[in-house]
């Protein structure tokens, strides 16, 4: 037995999934435990503090800050309306008055004598979060949000761009090796999550967005095509906030890569069903991977134990694994040997390896760091 360094991605026809829906600041939770929610149900609401409008009183009135002493007409904590008098200075012989009025509604948050600046906090801005998936509220985190539990098909991708979206699964390719070419994009794809095979290019992505698709799921995309579609280069591996009309999820990686048959078949079995997808990816310890959740109709909750997160799996003889680095990238097979002693590989490094039997019957040797367990 041994440890796989890369946890496998979940591809499950029947999983229990919990999503934490949390406000960025303290607020109010609008649903109770046990409530049935749909993806667009608003589950919590908060008020984000409004922006501060800094009024440079001294500059505006052409006086030194210390000349304002006694001439500011409002105090910290006062509510003010747009146009209210904030400060007033009389000039020579009291003839010329210089006044500054409030540029907005709000509350005086500070006044600094050193700078002669006055800060007015504008009214708070309401924000809401929705349930994202159809399910049942399992837990309420007081003042912060909820945990929504659902049950259904759950597929993690390896990389994505674009945020949370909902739609119906629609197959656009007949096999995992087919490219989602522009001509395979339906003319009317409104509300669809289009599933392709090996790859997609910028033209097909643009056409899918124009046809109303909410998301595209494929095996891979070349780096050049992704750059062309986004219009810039992705630097650090944190995504999800891209300003793009649809979410793109890769299940295998960069390049033209046939989607794993299991993933493809599972998606095909869900065709026509409503799904929630999120392309957000963060690749660090405790990585966040993009996901496709297809809640099973009528089975939105159960009493099974909460799902476990993706942890490092355990390798054993017979464990199904996939090579995730050249020269064997994408090869799927079964572990046939786990040599306990480190082995010298072609780079000269001495590392722990495994031997796996692949589809054509060959046995290949791969560093353990270069496989992921194919989770069943």
């Amino acid at each position, binding site marked *: 037995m041994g440890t796989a360094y890369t946890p496998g991605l979940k591809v499950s026809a029947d999983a229990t999934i919990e999503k934490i829906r949390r406000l960025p600041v303290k607020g109010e939770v609008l649903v109770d435990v046990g409530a049935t929610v749909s993806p667009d149900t608003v589950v919590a609401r908060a008020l984000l503090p409004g922006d501060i409008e800094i009024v440079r009183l001294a500059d505006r009135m052409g006086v030194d800050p210390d000349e304002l002493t006694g001439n500011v007409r409002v105090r910290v904590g006062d509510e003010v309306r747009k146009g209210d008098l904030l400060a007033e200075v009389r000039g020579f012989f009291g003839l010329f008055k210089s006044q500054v009025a409030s540029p907005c509604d709000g509350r005086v948050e500070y006044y600094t004598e050193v700078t002669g600046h006055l800060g007015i906090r504008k009214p708070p801005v309401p924000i809401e979060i929705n349930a994202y998936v159809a399910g049942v509220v399992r837990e309420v985190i007081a003042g912060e949000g909820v945990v929504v539990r659902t049950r259904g098909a759950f597929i993690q991708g390896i990389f994505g761009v674009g945020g949370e979206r909902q739609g119906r699964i629609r197959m656009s390719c007949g096999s995992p090796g087919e490219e989602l070419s522009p001509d395979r994009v339906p003319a009317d794809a409104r509300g669809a999550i289009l599933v392709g095979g090996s790859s997609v290019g910028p033209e097909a992505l643009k056409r899918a967005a124009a046809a109303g698709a909410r998301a595209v799921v494929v095996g891979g995309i070349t*780096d050049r095509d992704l750059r062309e579609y986004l219009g810039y280069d992705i630097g650090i591996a944190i995504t999800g906030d891209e300003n793009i009309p649809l979410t793109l999820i890769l299940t295998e990686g960069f390049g033209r890569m046939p989607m794993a048959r299991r993933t493809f078949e599972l998606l095909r079995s869900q065709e026509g069903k409503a799904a929630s997808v999120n392309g957000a990816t963060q690749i660090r310890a405790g990585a966040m991977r993009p996901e496709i959740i297809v809640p099973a109709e009528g089975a939105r909750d159960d009493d099974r134990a909460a799902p476990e997160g993706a942890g490092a799996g355990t390798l054993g003889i017979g464990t199904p694994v996939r090579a995730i680095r050249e020269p064997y990238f994408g090869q799927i097979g079964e572990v046939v040997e786990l040599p306990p002693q480190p082995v010298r590989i072609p780079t000269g490094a001495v590392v722990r390896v495994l031997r796996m039997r692949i589809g054509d019957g060959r046995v290949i040797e791969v560093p353990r760091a270069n496989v992921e367990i194919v989770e069943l």
Partner: protein
Amino acid sequence: MHQGRERGEPPPDPEKLKVVLATDCGSTTTKAVLFELRPEGWRQTFRGEAPTTVEKPFEDVTIGARNAISEVEELSGRRILDQSVSDGLAFVRPAGGKDGIDLYVSTSSAGGGLQMMVTGVVRTMTAESAERAALGAGAIVMDVLSVDDGRRPHERIRKIRHLRPDIVLLSGGVDGGTRQHIVELAETLLAADPKPRFGRTLKLPIIYAGNRDAAEDVRKLLEGRFGFQQVPNIRPVLERENLGPARAAIHEVFLSHVMSHAPGYDKVMAASPVDIMSTPHAVGVMAELAAKRRGIDLMAVDIGGATTDVFSVCKGIFNRTVSANLGMSYSVSNVLAEAGIENICRWLPFRADPDAIRGSLRNKMIRPTTIPQDMRDLIVEQAVAREALRLALSHHKSLAVGLKGVQQERTIADAFEQNATGASLIDMMAVGMIIGSGGVLSHAPDRKSAALMLLDSFEPQGVTELCVDSIFMMPHLGVFGSVHPGAAQEIFERDCLVCLGTSICPVSGRIRPGTPVLKYEISGGAKAAGTVAAGELVRIELPVGERARVVLEPLGRSVDVGAGRGRRLEIEAKGGHAGIVFDARGRPLALPDDPDERAAANARWMEALGIATG
């Protein structure tokens, strides 16, 4: 104060220590090492590692630490963990026979390390001092705010709102100077109202280290909303920096606020009588100790998965920078974005399809723990490393500078040198040692390739000892050194440093390739004599542990090997995996423009060092 001491545990007596366990909880892996007092002296004996468990689903750093320590137990046969305690870290103490330890210490950079925002009035003066203070304390600086940063107030406020720093260092102005600007900065902070990363109920700590005359105004504005703490000004007068008190306060807040809110760290703190150090801080401590002991200028670099840290001790001044998005796994795509594919490909000894290289780097980013299996893949990774190191060094040089805006008294001699204020402190000719660490350098299957990566990216000049940290032990030694500096130093020399060899890099004006620039004569551990021509790399074998006397004779009045132009130099060279390397490729290093010629030159240089070319 630290929890271990609050619990009444006395500071350890270094003389009574025999077995010490140290962990470094990194962003990806937690590394445990064992230090033991053996008959020959202090040694590092065993090492274990396991994935760090700060984030979901575990959210307890001690799980990963226990796993790493268990590996040390398996390898050493020593019982270390007290198995009667299942939660947290409890140890069999003291050491006796084959069981137990006397002391446990730890460093940490998990969960993104210590993330700070700093401010100053003028970008090149107080803001730069604030940045140096934060970096030197081991922080990642998320943003530098200054009155002259070119942003409008609402732009600053919007940026600050998006950041979730652990600490803000608010500095600006000299003591007795104008108060207005720093108070404006405080107003901006108040308006933005940034929230801390950990602890939703925690007040964001603000360390005030600016004009002392403005402290009261700033306190009035910020106290109540933030955790306000005042320390002496980091720039009390223009001519002097006083970074010590701010750094100490950062370290204290790091322990009391950041670490204590990070998942499981309370248990780590309770298990050790010694304060947890941030990983880069500990590396810095060790680098400073080494430079002082040797009496040289020294540089160290740690190239990790997400970030690259550069440390320098030059002219007696310690500096550290962190290039937050230059790394070999999570950040590999950012190296690609910053350096450009052409700059990465220029280091390859073969022609390659840039699109294929880009694709393979993207796949490395999304599966960051994979390793190269074939030679070409390894060479591509090492090409990326050269660019990450080059960019990180350039960043470091821009910050490791003398104070700017300072009036200098000039003598007649200075008038000929015309040194500007704010000149870089890094003089590669004066740097006597470069230590590399991080997987791509420390675990390079052929250590000679680590030497070439350092030569290509750092471009040392004159005579420089090149080393790597064998297993990235400098953090462990840094924190252990706070208890027992002598033992840490002993292990550093014996087990931490792996000597790659001595590089000798003549510097001259433009010389046509092929023109002899240097004559050498080597005696002692190796015997050789010859000349080196411009454009050449020459390697003379000198094994690890051996020393040789080298006489260097510049062949030309403009050639400098370290003693000045045209001057002869005699040195004692240390042996290593690469031996003695003469690098006469010129500074700055210029590669041929033609892609085929460039690939051929890279292949020639690799072969000269005995490195496989794929």
